[in-house]
């Protein structure tokens, strides 16, 4: 009894004071504390006019956020549109441009990845066009299409095509050679090998590419829309012209939130196709 007593206390001490206080609970606590501190700092700082002139307080911004999220769908003309409509307009543009980009990038990436010669030959184009800022395409798009809607979609397409294309080609070109040996020793046809082995084997890379492309589309649409007339980007631009900062902050928060959700969807998809492989 006397011997077992210290051991008992020691295990209890090693496990921590309370079993419910695990890592996640601690992280949540830290998150809430930091958020409260940040909002307090903002509120007090804005009231004391420590920041730029006209900077809204935290409470004013949160009120606006509440108002905009409880009144998402109203339509009083293009310069006074509910944020829900603007969000849907932006999402629609992203969806069309991104879908077109993926529909081109995945098959093209597979074709380029399958042939080592094509891979080497087309790599310079991709590497040259990939680092170009999406906004550099804007004048070209406007000149070609003479239409802001089409230009927006074009910008999304041209800037979100590259990550998917590169990742798909890389994944296809770097399929584990043992899988190909298996296919060869079974005497599988080229078509069967491509559809049953190469594409599934490259799927984690393809989905990673799609995830990066989606992130870029969402980055680009806001910037492009500032010059286009509707959507979340235009909402920000419009509020800037009104010089009403709280709404800009609301829009920033909503853009971030939607980006986070989109990224999480693709993160889940990546896990779904990994089957124990590391992406």
């Amino acid at each position: 009894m006397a011997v077992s007593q210290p051991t008992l206390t020691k295990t209890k001490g090693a496990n921590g004071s309370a079993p419910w206080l695990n890592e996640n609970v601690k992280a949540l606590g830290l998150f809430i504390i930091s958020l409260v501190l940040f909002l307090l700092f903002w509120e007090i700082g804005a009231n004391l006019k420590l920041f730029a002139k006209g900077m809204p307080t935290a409470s004013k911004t949160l009120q606006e956020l509440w108002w905009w999220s409880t009144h998402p769908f109203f339509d009083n003309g293009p310069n006074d549109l509910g944020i829900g409509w603007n969000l849907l307009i932006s999402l629609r543009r992203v969806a069309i441009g991104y879908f077109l980009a993926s529909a081109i990038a995945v098959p093209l990436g597979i074709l380029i990845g399958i042939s080592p010669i094509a891979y080497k030959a087309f790599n310079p184009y991709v590497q040259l066009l990939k680092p170009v800022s999406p906004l550099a395409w804007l004048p070209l798009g406007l000149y070609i299409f003479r239409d802001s809607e089409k230009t927006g979609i074009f910008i999304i397409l041209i800037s979100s095509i590259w990550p998917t294309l590169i990742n798909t080609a890389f994944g296809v070109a770097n399929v584990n050679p043992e899988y190909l040996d298996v296919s060869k020793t079974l005497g599988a046809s080229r078509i069967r090998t491509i559809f049953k082995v190469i594409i599934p084997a490259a799927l984690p890379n393809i989905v990673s590419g799609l995830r990066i492309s989606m992130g870029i589309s969402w980055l680009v649409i806001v910037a492009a829309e500032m010059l286009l007339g509707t959507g979340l980007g235009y909402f920000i631009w419009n509020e800037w012209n009104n010089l009403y900062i709280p709404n800009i902050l609301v829009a920033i928060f909503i853009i971030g939130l939607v980006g986070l959700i989109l990224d999480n969807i693709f993160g889940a998809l990546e896990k779904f196709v990994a089957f124990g492989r590391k992406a």
Partner: protein
Amino acid sequence: MSIASVNYSSNGAVSPEPEFPSAQLSIRNVTKVFAGKRDIFSKLSGKTSRDFVAIEDISLDIEPNTFVSIIGPSGCGKSTLLNMVAGLSPVSQGEILLNGSPITGPGPDRGMVFQNYALMPWMTVEENIRFAVETVFSKLSPKQINRAIKEQIQLVGLEGAEKKHPHELSGGMRQRVGIARALAINPQILLMDEPFGALDALTRGFLQSEVERIWEQQRKTVIMITHSIEEALLLSDRIVMMTRGPAARVDEILEVPFPRPRDRNTIDQHPAYHDLKAEMESHLFRETRAVEESRIR
């Protein structure tokens, strides 16, 4: 030298003629050279390399229904030889005949078991075997295909794991799938490239016994590459010992006379066991020492 190596047998057993009529697989004066880089890009970047002779003038005849092990120091070209038999790697000189006709590429008459299993991670156990069966027997009805898959799963003892993906299985179970997949296409020859090399010692022993059991049922011709003397003695009818590379050759072929079925616990009671083991150990020791010394120089 190559003919001598075929005819030579340490146990004094009568060896086949070079043109043995019943040989199922015959490897004739095969040489493998890996071409060096001498193209214009390599020259410009100063990265040219010389040709590398991996295997030089190997001849070997394998009769039907024999289990042949190939053993040799690491880097001696064992896997290269097996890949040439599989048709995955072209022969530089000489020829490999399967039932009298030369091998020109891979085909389903030879089943391959890979060291790292090479299972498709996105397919379940059942789908991995199904991929092989459907590829090779595309004319079978779905019912027949399902029956063939079930048979293989039972043969290797994987019932209950059909719907699992490879990453949910242990190494030993993965290699069972690998073996089932190779046997599912009913090949004439089973090629195994260090099939137990990635397994821990206990699992390896267990799987060796399983392979012995399966082999008793089917008696397929098997060529297995191994590093393990005990493994070769337990499973093989003949053991081919190769010299060190480069320009590796067949040094000696041992006949393993133990009766079947063999039991890993009692096999060492056979009078010839320890002599054979000692002979293989001295060969491997000599070759490995030479390899290590050549690396130091």
